[in-house]
């Protein structure tokens, strides 16, 4: 096959075109197919950063002349047909990429120009397992407008079922609804697949040839437009004191039903906020206290919810002050002192006086517990003045904007427990967990310069993030995968149970398969007789871990400050002692040096 017909379509600089011509010249058909798959894979997974200019040829020109074929297959028929079509299109000299639906990068849909979908319908109208995400995305409200897209759908099914080819039909009409142009009518293939499928495939091939020819004529002129890699941001108008009201896109529990805790994955839209963030940054959330808690506090203090309180230049009903202006779930010393003066209760006085008991009281009680346990007379004005102003809660962002675009993802452990005969909540986690999609949340970006990926992308990184401490590392990994960072990525994760608490398990597995995550060590503390934590995994992997550090790896720790960070620090120190034949002090000095070099960073709370 000659490379000449291809050449006319190549939107590359002349020098690259020459290279390409030499590369493909004389290759047999199989090699050419391989090459097209290889480069399509590159395009799909690696957004290669531009060398020094901050520019990148817009992907639009690249995808213009490309046919994308997506299939969802349960028993293999759709796959077979899609593969056959891709093969034929390739033979016809068309640029084609073939993707199983769950491998399709959904973000690219909006820039797609020519799309064929081959998809079966299972049982009572369900998509094949590998296409659920794809179908849901297109059906959902996050699907982009597709004015530029031309498409056609081939559905497969079994007409003895009521929902014959329902998935294909729904996709077909939804794509049109999103503004895409249907090239030709949908095929609904029955169990005698080929009767319908073969004419459809034939038509698809002919149409793709015509369409791509037209498109390439339109764009083969030197019209490749150049778009800045980082689009200009709108000037920031939102900040901590003036939070942006972010729409909740997803609020999904990600610990299993029998999990020890309710962990949520929350996706927020920062669209039009002007915020930009980097992996490692935190998102500040201004919560509203649970209404039931506010009512309990007012009841326990014997006050009237509507009594007006003027404070700090604002006059509001007491209930409003407590809902989103005062701290109720965290107990502060000044409030307890003020309360003790009013309560005149010997037990409370001795608790406050005890250097041992007082911190325990502060840690275990909320405002309402103190009001209930040691009743005292308050007036509304004084109560508002005595309580601490509400502070925002900071959550490590669990996404990279290179993948999540204008969204920020959070990993939130819902705090919800029984104490003193009453249900207790954490203010922000409860607030977030109760937000459905469409609700809004006041947020701002809190930059965290001390928790950054290495400037040098060829450095290895070691990420230690048990529990929700894994959040920033999801963003790290997304970022490193998107930029094609050369360095290796090693994650340590732990939680109580493998089966219920393996946060983002499927994403890590995918990253391992794609070679984006190189090592994953897990410690599930309660899956065996003896408890196993990340620090045990670190010690077990001491030799390799030390080798990574010696080769310049950056070490990151995120999560619980009280115990985990301390135990992990000790484990790292012991690894250095053991593997580096150093004294304890020398090992500590090594860790201090690494910290000073920003190669040992902690984000602990």
């Amino acid at each position, binding site marked *: 096959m000659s490379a000449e017909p291809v050449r006319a379509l190549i939107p590359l600089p002349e020098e690259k075109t020459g290279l390409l011509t030499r590369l493909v010249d004389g290759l047999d058909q199989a090699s050419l197919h391989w090459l097209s798959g290889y480069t399509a894979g590159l395009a799909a997974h690696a957004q290669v950063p531009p060398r020094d200019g901050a520019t990148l040829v817009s992907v639009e020109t690249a995808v213009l002349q490309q046919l994308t074929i997506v299939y969802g297959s349960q028993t293999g028929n759709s796959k*077979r047909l899609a593969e056959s079509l891709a093969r034929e299109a390739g033979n016809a000299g068309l640029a084609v990429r073939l993707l199983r639906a769950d491998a399709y990068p959904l973000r690219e849909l909006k820039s797609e120009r020519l799309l064929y979908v081959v998809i079966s319908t299972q*049982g009572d109208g369900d998509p094949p397992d590998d296409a659920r995400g794809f179908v849901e995305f297109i059906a959902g409200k996050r699907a982009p407008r597709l004015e530029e897209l031309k498409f056609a759908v081939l559905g497969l099914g079994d007409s003895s079922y009521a929902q014959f080819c329902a998935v294909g039909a729904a996709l077909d009409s939804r794509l049109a609804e999103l503004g895409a142009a249907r090239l030709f009518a949908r095929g609904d293939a029955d169990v005698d697949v080929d009767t319908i*499928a073969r004419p459809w495939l034939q038509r698809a091939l002919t149409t793709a040839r015509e369409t791509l020819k037209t498109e390439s004529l339109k764009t083969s002129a030197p019209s490749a437009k150049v778009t800045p890699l980082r689009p200009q941001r709108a000037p920031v108008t939102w900040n901590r004191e003036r939070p942006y009201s972010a729409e909740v896109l997803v609020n999904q529990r990600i610990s299993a039903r029998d999990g020890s805790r309710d962990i949520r994955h929350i996706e927020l839209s920062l669209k039009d906020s002007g915020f930009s963030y980097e992996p490692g940054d935190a998102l500040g959330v201004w919560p509203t206290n649970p209404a039931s808690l506010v009512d309990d506090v007012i009841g326990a203090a014997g006050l009237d919810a509507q009594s007006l309180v003027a404070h700090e230049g604002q006059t509001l009903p007491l209930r409003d002050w407590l809902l989103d202006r005062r701290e109720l779930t965290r107990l502060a010393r000044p409030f307890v002192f003020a309360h003790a003066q009013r309560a005149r209760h010997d037990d409370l006085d001795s608790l406050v006086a005890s250097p041992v008991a007082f911190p325990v009281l502060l840690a275990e009680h909320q405002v309402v517990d103190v009001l209930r346990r040691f009743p005292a007379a308050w007036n509304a004005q004084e109560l508002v003045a005595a309580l601490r102003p509400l502070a925002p809660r900071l959550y490590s962002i669990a996404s990279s904007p290179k993948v999540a675009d204008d969204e920020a993802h959070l990993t939130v452990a819902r705090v919800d427990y029984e104490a003193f005969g009453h249900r207790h909540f954490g203010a922000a986690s409860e607030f977030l967990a109760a937000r459905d999609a469409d609700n809004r949340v006041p947020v701002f970006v809190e930059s965290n310069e001390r928790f950054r990926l290495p400037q040098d992308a060829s450095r290895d990184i070691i990420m230690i993030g048990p529990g929700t401490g894994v959040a920033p590392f999801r963003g790290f990994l997304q970022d490193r995968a998107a930029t094609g960072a050369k360095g290796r990525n090693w994650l340590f994760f732990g939680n109580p149970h493998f089966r219920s608490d393996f946060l983002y398990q499927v994403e890590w597995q995918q990253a391992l398969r794609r070679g984006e995550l190189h090592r994953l060590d897990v410690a599930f503390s309660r899956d065996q007789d003896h408890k196993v934590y990340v620090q045990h995994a670190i010690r077990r992997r001491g030799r390799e871990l030390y080798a990574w550090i010696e080769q310049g790896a950056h070490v990151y720790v995120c999560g619980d400050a009280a115990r985990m960070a301390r135990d992990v620090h000790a484990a790292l120190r012991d690894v250095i002692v053991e593997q580096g034949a150093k004294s304890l002090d020398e090992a500590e000095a090594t860790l201090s040096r690494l910290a000073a070099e920003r190669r040992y960073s902690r984000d602990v709370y």
Partner: protein
Amino acid sequence: MNSPNSMTADSYRAAAAEGVKEASRRLRGTLVASLADAVTGALAEADAQVLKFHGSYQQDDRDLREERRLQKLEPAHDFMIRTRLPGGVVTPRQWLQLDAIAGSYANGTLRLTTRQAFQFHGIIKRQLKATLQAINASLIDTVAACGDVNRNVVVAANPYESRAHAAVHDSACRLSEYLLPKTRAYYEIWLDEKQVAGSGEEDEPIYGPTYLPRKFKIAFAVPPVNDVDAFANDIGFIAIIEHGTLLGFNVVAGGGLGATHGDPNTYPRLADMLGFVAPDRVIATAEAIVTTQRDFGNRSDRKRARLKYTIDDRGFAWFKAEIERRAGFEFAPARPYGFDTNGDRFGWTEGEDGRLHLTLRIESGRIADRDGAPQRKGLREIARVHRGEFRLTPNQNLIVANIAATQRAQIEALVAAHGLDNFRIATPVRLHALACVALPTCSQAMAEAERYLPDFLVRIEALLERHGLRDAPINLRLSGCPNGCSRPYLGEIALVGKAPGRYNLLLGADARGQRLNALYRENIDETEILAALDPLFARFALERNGEEGFGDFILRNNIVAAATVSNKSIPLETRT
């Protein structure tokens, strides 16, 4: 454009399966590494296939699949383990050991299968090895209980013709041992046997390096009871017994019930009669059939890889000649025999040696402790005092066998105290119903079976009651998919799952395992099923000839077309 059919999905799958076997170094694969991978509760795809040969299936809780997908968690993977237990016989001591395994590693239940095996469900990957070690510690193994090899050999369960039955059982056990794969993989991986030179390259004189194209099933029947459904097996040995002595076997071959919805190239098929052989020729006969299937079975389409298709594709005359050539002898003409039923005989029976056997009804073969019926506990109590053995029947029931007359009262009391005496009061349709496991664990299931059976029985009993048919012995079989674990195509009434809540309704088998049923209504829900049966029951009540069975009645009245019922291979039937 080229035909998109140049390589079909089926042939891809078959080629992949054959490749996995070939590359597995005699069924080792990378199982050890897969077991050690802490990031997933599953095995590598190829290892999951290899694992079957070791008697275990990787499954997942399908009730949770969608929920966990949204939770970004992998499916809740677990494993089913099936024992190899020729004829389904265990000692009381073994019963207690298996019961303890069900409690400590599995989901707290024991499942008796239609092939006289125990199944444990819900075992997680990191306990798989410990569980297999515990099973082997009870002197029971799971080698070749699944996979493309000869599976568990089933044998007529009730030993009332004690001496001849013992001889039949002995033939079955020796054949099972003879057909075991020779690889040491099982012992190395699960029982820590040391690898020796040649490990991974063991000679497999019967199977060869890629084993069989598909699973292979053998049954031994003792007329007049066809509890094993001999004609549904790749090989059926039908015992010919005269005056208490085993003379030999009529051999039938090419049975199998699996089919695929909407694929007319697949179908259930009953075995054909080859002829009579003496007991000392059982092994040579079986080996000739197995190796013929090894060499000629379809290895490019797993849906058509069973022996039944090899016979249909090449012709029975060719097949019989090939077997005789390989075996080195000719079959004698089949001896007269006859089957009365393929069901179990419940309650007490007495063997010719004066020992007693008590057949208990275990619904769907599931031994569990339920409210008001702590059956698992009850059987544990019985195992603690029983001195005979336990026998699993091919109809998912259980025989407490070889009870001394002096122990009868004691066993009887334990049975009554633990809700094991339902066989006395249950309707015939309830007593004889079969259901496969299906949802939530079976990956093949398209609809509920075991979990749906209790509800469906209540409905169908009410319907029968309304037509005065409470005591009509109707054989009902429920299957979650068309693959046939509960032998649905031999049920007088069968439901074969198509989609959640929807089934094909098949009618007209003969309750003796010698005539297949046929499709009556396709893809209908419960209301439609009951509405379809209602007028048939009404007619049956009015027009039944004497003790005529429901399936025979259906056929006589052409309610399903005789042509479709008379499958191309109705076996020879001769009455004594």
